[in-house]
């Protein structure tokens, strides 16, 4: 009798347990519709810092992060995107030093080596190597992702920003000129299109380092190596000086650059182009949506000018990176993949005016149809970067701006400028 009762009770218990277990299994499935689920199946919170060039760009980051958070119920990303790229970079370093760095940061190619050398960045290589999307990346981009040959893949860019030469096609036509291809043609065109006081030949940036960044590919095409692996600096060579003399000459001698160049940054330069006060401007493709909206077919692009036969086109990848203090690196990698795929990748390329780094995304016809993208893609073989990975590059980049202004104001000679830049690249200043 006893055995029966116990065994019935036990049977009931077993059924009950099975029922509970079954119900639990049913109920534990997340309520939201799922795509291919993430590998991480715990509640994880990540902080992500990136920059915003303007409120439109900020909204892109907000939307992309929201997409990620909604698409899966485990990882929540908290976004901070309220400052410009250099400020975010500085803030990341400061926060890391104080132990309060985010989990995922954002970087441009320029700073990747510095982050890696100082232990701030955790190489994405361990995940990238196992990822089936890795073959989709253009080989030269993967090279950039290593920063130096032989290093692991450091970060996962989702876009690449090429620099092009914007010009006023209507003014060129009026003056019966062709768009310039060589550097000398470029200087000459600026001179010819210059109609003071209201129309400058070229919108020159003199207020900060980015004014030099657009000259670097021209130096590159002149054969200047800046600094090579052994530390030998040729930035003060006669070729380098000659390029700079012509550039500065646009402002000081030809007067074909706008008179306010010394203190002009992006807002001022853009305003000049938009108000039809400048004929040419070297800048990234991300300015084309607004320029196109303002000037329509009057604004066209060609590759940046070259000195010798082979042009160099500045093209910098950019994208998220995993910070070494992040405690949930798998979750961080999931987020990186999300930002580099599908809709987010389209937002940050098409939407922003940058080129994709993945073959599948660049197959989209919009990149061939858009005249700005087309020019940039056509010169893909001359995409180039200065030696960002050299240990003294950041030193030069951080400190050189005031000297540029002094050179434009003719307070120091071009030779002295190149010498100072060379000193910075040698780490002597």
């Amino acid at each position, binding site marked *: 009798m006893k055995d029966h009762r116990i065994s019935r009770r036990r049977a009931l218990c077993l059924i009950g347990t099975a029922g509970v277990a079954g119900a639990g299994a049913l109920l534990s499935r997340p309520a939201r519709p799922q795509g291919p689920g993430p590998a991480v199946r715990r509640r994880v919170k990540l902080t992500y810092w990136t920059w915003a060039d303007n409120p439109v760009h900020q909204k892109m980051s907000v939307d992309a992060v929201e997409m990620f958070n909604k698409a899966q119920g485990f990882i929540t990303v908290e976004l901070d995107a309220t*400052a410009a790229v250099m400020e975010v970079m500085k803030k990341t370093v400061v*926060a890391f030093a104080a132990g309060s760095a985010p989990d995922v940061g954002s970087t441009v190619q320029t700073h990747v080596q510095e982050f890696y050398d100082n232990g701030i960045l955790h190489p994405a290589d361990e995940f990238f190597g196992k990822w089936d999307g890795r073959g989709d990346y253009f080989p030269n981009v993967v090279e950039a992702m290593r920063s130096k040959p032989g290093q692991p893949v450091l970060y996962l860019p989702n876009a690449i920003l090429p620099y092009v030469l914007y010009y006023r096609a209507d003014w060129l036509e009026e003056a019966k000129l062709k768009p310039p291809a060589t550097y000398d043609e470029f200087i000459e065109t600026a001179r010819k299109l210059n109609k003071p006081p209201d129309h400058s030949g070229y919108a020159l940036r003199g207020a900060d380092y980015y004014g030099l960044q657009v000259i670097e590919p021209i130096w590159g095409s002149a054969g200047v190596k800046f600094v090579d692996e052994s530390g030998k600096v040729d930035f003060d060579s006669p070729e380098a000086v000659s390029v700079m003399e012509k550039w500065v000459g646009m402002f000081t001698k030809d007067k074909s650059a706008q008179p306010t160049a010394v203190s002009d940054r992006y807002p001022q330069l853009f305003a000049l182009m938009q*108000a039809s006060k400048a004929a040419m401007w070297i800048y990234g493709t991300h300015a084309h949506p*607004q320029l196109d909206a303002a000037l329509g077919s009057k604004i066209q692009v060609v590759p940046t000018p070259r000195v010798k036969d082979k042009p160099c086109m500045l093209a910098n990848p950019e994208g998220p990176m995993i910070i070494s203090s992040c405690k949930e690196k798998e979750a961080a990698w999931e987020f990186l993949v999300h930002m580099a795929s599908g809709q987010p990748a389209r937002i940050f390329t098409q939407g922003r005016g940058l080129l994709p780094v993945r073959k599948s995304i660049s197959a989209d016809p919009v990149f061939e149809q858009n005249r700005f993208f087309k020019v940039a893609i056509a010169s893909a073989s001359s995409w180039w970067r200065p030696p960002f990975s050299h240990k003294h590059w950041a030193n030069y980049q951080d400190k050189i701006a005031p000297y540029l202004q002094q050179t434009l104001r003719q307070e120091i000679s071009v030779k002295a400028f190149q010498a100072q830049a060379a000193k910075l690249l040698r780490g002597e200043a």
Partner: protein
Amino acid sequence: MRRASLLLGSAAILVFSLAPFLWIFIASITPEIKPDLSRPWLSVRTVEYFPARPTLQNYYDLFKNVPFAVYFRNSAIVASGTMTLALVVASLGAYGFVRFKFRGRGPLLLTMLMAYMIPSVVLLVPLLVIFRSYGLINTYQGLILAEATNTAPFALLLMINYFSTLPRELEEAAQVDGCGRLGTLFRIVIPLSIPGLVAGGLFAFIATWNNFLFAFLFATTDRVKTLPLIMRLFALGEPAVWGVSAAGAILTTLPVALLFLLFQRMLMSGLAAGAVKG
């Protein structure tokens, strides 16, 4: 003659103080569609430069694109918090300095004044490291404490000056009546010092409301970010969002202006006593 020169003087002061600000206001109600930077806007000649179709769209967009309400709330919390903290510690401290003679009084006051002279930039990294170890990053408490470095010493100076103008007789009478020191402070001195407190409080509030540096480094999540950080992004952005930025600027300035208007009279008398001793 007197009437005319009064009018002229008033007009001059109004133009000087308000003209640039009026320009921002006009920018904020100008439609964003076609920013026309070739035509500078000027408030005085409103006939020519006033937008043909003023709009409130920019204010709309401001709340849509940016969590403005959240930032506003955060600014309000942090500013009030700093104000309260500064006033409380400064009043207690000032009373101690003024009404007591104790060992180390002079040197202590001097040390505080000297610490006040250190530029904020020096304190940034040390504060960051300290706050990190106490978990104060991205908290209201952290921001309030950081802002107090600027506001507490000034409040202290103000209250010291203010208390020293109050006659001792009132307090002595209260004490003869059996009131303790603390009681005297709360029941006699503080009520008499409301103007001074208003002055100190208002300055602390404004300084904190507008402070950018500490907010930038110590507040990295939207939960605690304050208003000046919105200004920063717009300051770097393109001219195409000038109208929305202007709207943000107006809304950031308005609350403090209202506070000032409300407490004007008390502020005046508070400052009078607080600065007379010099």
